[in-house]
């Protein structure tokens, strides 16, 4: 007799029994054959011996109390060196008694990055976070900030202009009038300022002593160069990638030319160009801070690489997505911002993070123009003749700090991928 099951239902059989528990797992995965068993044993012995001699050096015979380098010789790791030099490593040549300032700046930057990583902040809040955070960071680093009147006028013009164009159809008359008023003030004010009618007034905030960028070093320098570099390079790279796929030949040629030019030269040569050659082209009297020049060089360089990563994502989208968006009547900006980029960026999260991490570490190249980022201040700690001969400790410590940053970013990107792809099985 056959079973009579309701239509559409089938008897579900349990999967076959396999050996369960730790022993079963080991037998299946580590000792499934003679050869695998031997390989397992050899590897365990090999890794174990390396690990034990490393621990012997790094922990059991390590010296953390030495007063000078000579006390350390002939023993294990000399962590005393790190304890002695950590302030130099973290903050470089920033005035010693003022080093709480780069500490506050670094914590602010980290807080900004952590807040930015939360998807609930990806709206107007992001602008607030970065405006307030940047203000604190640079107030701490410089000690004094001068905000010229033209900056306020430019912001008024920008807010007014963007509001007028983006909220045209949504805002009521009162709101639109406010935008028109802002834009008008900004425009007239800037014109008067350029004509020399308005004086060069500026808002001076001077609570602390001024520290020039030449004295900055260590963690804050790495964080500033990397995070501002990527924050500006990311939208810039998106524009380059879109421009490279534009229908307008001139824009396309400009973008292709820029990307190929930048990709064709090493970052070091770009940095040297920014620090040595750029001042030669500028009219005398006009100077840019060396730090700012390095920052701009990093933004330009990273932008070109990010553009190519994003172009890969744009090309991975089927043509039908563009056509569906067009058929619904979206204009170019809406189509790109609502349909194309959200999908393209999701696809390129892994290579994008790869590029980000690469640039985070590549900021060390600014040493070539005399800026001391974290790796380079760590290097400085080796110069002291009292503590000569412990490069392994210093570099291992620097590597650990870099690893903590990079591994967090890597975990975050994994989390972001899962979160963004929730529900969209493709």
């Amino acid at each position, binding site marked *: 007799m056959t079973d009579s099951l309701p239509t559409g239902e089938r008897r579900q059989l349990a999967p076959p029994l396999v050996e369960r528990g730790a022993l079963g797992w080991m037998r299946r995965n580590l000792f499934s054959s003679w050869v695998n068993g031997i390989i397992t044993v050899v590897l365990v012995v090999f890794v174990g011996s390396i690990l034990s001699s490393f621990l012997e050096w790094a922990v059991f015979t390590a010296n953390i109390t030495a007063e000078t380098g000579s006390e350390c010789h002939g023993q294990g790791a000399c962590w005393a060196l790190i304890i002695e030099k950590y302030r130099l490593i973290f903050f470089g040549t920033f005035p010693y008694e003022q080093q709480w300032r780069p500490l506050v700046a670094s914590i602010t930057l980290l807080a900004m990055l952590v807040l930015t990583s939360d998807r609930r902040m990806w709206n107007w809040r992001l602008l607030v976070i970065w405006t307030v955070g940047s203000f604190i960071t640079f107030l701490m680093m410089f000690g004094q900030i001068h905000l010229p009147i033209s900056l306020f006028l430019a912001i008024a013009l920008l807010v007014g202009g963007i509001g007028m164009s983006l909220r045209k159809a949504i805002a009521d008359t009162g709101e639109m009038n406010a935008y028109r008023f802002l834009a008008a003030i900004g425009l007239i004010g800037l014109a008067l300022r350029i004509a020399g009618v308005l004086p060069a007034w500026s808002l001076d905030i001077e609570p602390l002593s001024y520290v020039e960028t030449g004295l900055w070093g260590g963690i804050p320098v790495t964080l500033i160069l990397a995070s501002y570099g990527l924050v500006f390079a990311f939208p810039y790279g998106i524009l380059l990638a879109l421009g490279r796929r534009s229908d307008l030949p001139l824009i396309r040629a400009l973008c292709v030319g820029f990307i190929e030019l930048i990709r064709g030269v090493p970052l070091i040569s770009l940095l040297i160009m920014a620090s040595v050659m750029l001042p030669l082209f500028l009219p005398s009297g006009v100077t840019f801070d060396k730090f700012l020049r390095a920052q701009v060089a990093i933004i330009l360089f990273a932008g070109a690489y990010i553009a190519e990563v994003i172009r890969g994502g744009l090309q991975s989208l089927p043509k039908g997505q563009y*056509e569906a968006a067009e058929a619904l009547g979206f204009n170019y900006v809406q189509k790109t911002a609502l349909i194309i980029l959200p999908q393209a960026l999701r696809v390129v999260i892994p290579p994008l993070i790869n590029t980000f991490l690469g640039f985070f570490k590549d900021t060390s190249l600014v040493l070539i123009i005399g800026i001391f980022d974290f790796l380079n201040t760590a290097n400085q700690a080796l110069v002291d003749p009292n503590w000569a001969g412990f490069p392994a400790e210093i570099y291992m410590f620097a590597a650990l700090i870099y690893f903590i940053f990079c591994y967090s970013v890597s975990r975050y990107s994994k989390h972001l991928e899962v979160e*963004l792809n929730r529900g969209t099985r493709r």
Partner: protein
Amino acid sequence: MAAKAVRDLSNIPSVIEMRAVNKWFGQFHVLSDINLDVKEGEKIVICGPSGSGKSTLIRCINRLEEHQAGDIVVDGVTLSNDVKNIEAIRREVGMVFQSFNLFPHLTILENLTLAPIWVKKMPKKDAEEIAMGLLNRVRIPEQALKYPGQLSGGQQQRVAIARALCMQPKVMLFDEPTSALDPEMVKEVLDVMIELAGEGMTMLVVTHEMGFARAVADRVIFMDFGEIVEQNEPEEFFANPRNERTKLFLSQILHH
């Protein structure tokens, strides 16, 4: 449905007029001298062998393809290179694709409301109300918060129809809407289209579903080598095809 009265369309205004439209893909003459008038409320089925230019024809109407000669007038607006013109026409013309082309990163509801909110500047609440009404009409309101990847092909195509309708278009273009579907899902999509036809929507449908053509079409157009070879009301078209190429095509798709 099959016993549909033949309507007199001569007094009704045209929604789409195509005058001597020509188009080339490189050297290939894909549309040659197309003249076509589509009256308000008219349902037209376009058939023909693959590569005959039928998809290209309807894709010219909303400028997914650009024609090189002749005039296309949609709802009184002449298609030109002016972006404002093109966007105005696209707001009035809905399109359903062979491969659905839903936006995979948005929920079904967001797929429907995105264009009304951004293109028509409709308040979100109103757009969602219209969208839920349409999802009810295509019989999948319970899928509103899922993503396209979680739906079957037939369901996705019904969502695509609802998405186009959400813009409240005057004309609907269907580019082989059932060709990519598994056989058992064809009917659910055709049912929705038949219902839509019954409500008086102007429809241009590229399809090989001859049953659908018999049931709803006011006119069947046969295209071959980029030309309109023959057009007639469905009864006459299927019973007495005049052109040899039409006869050959019909014999190939009807008798096997």
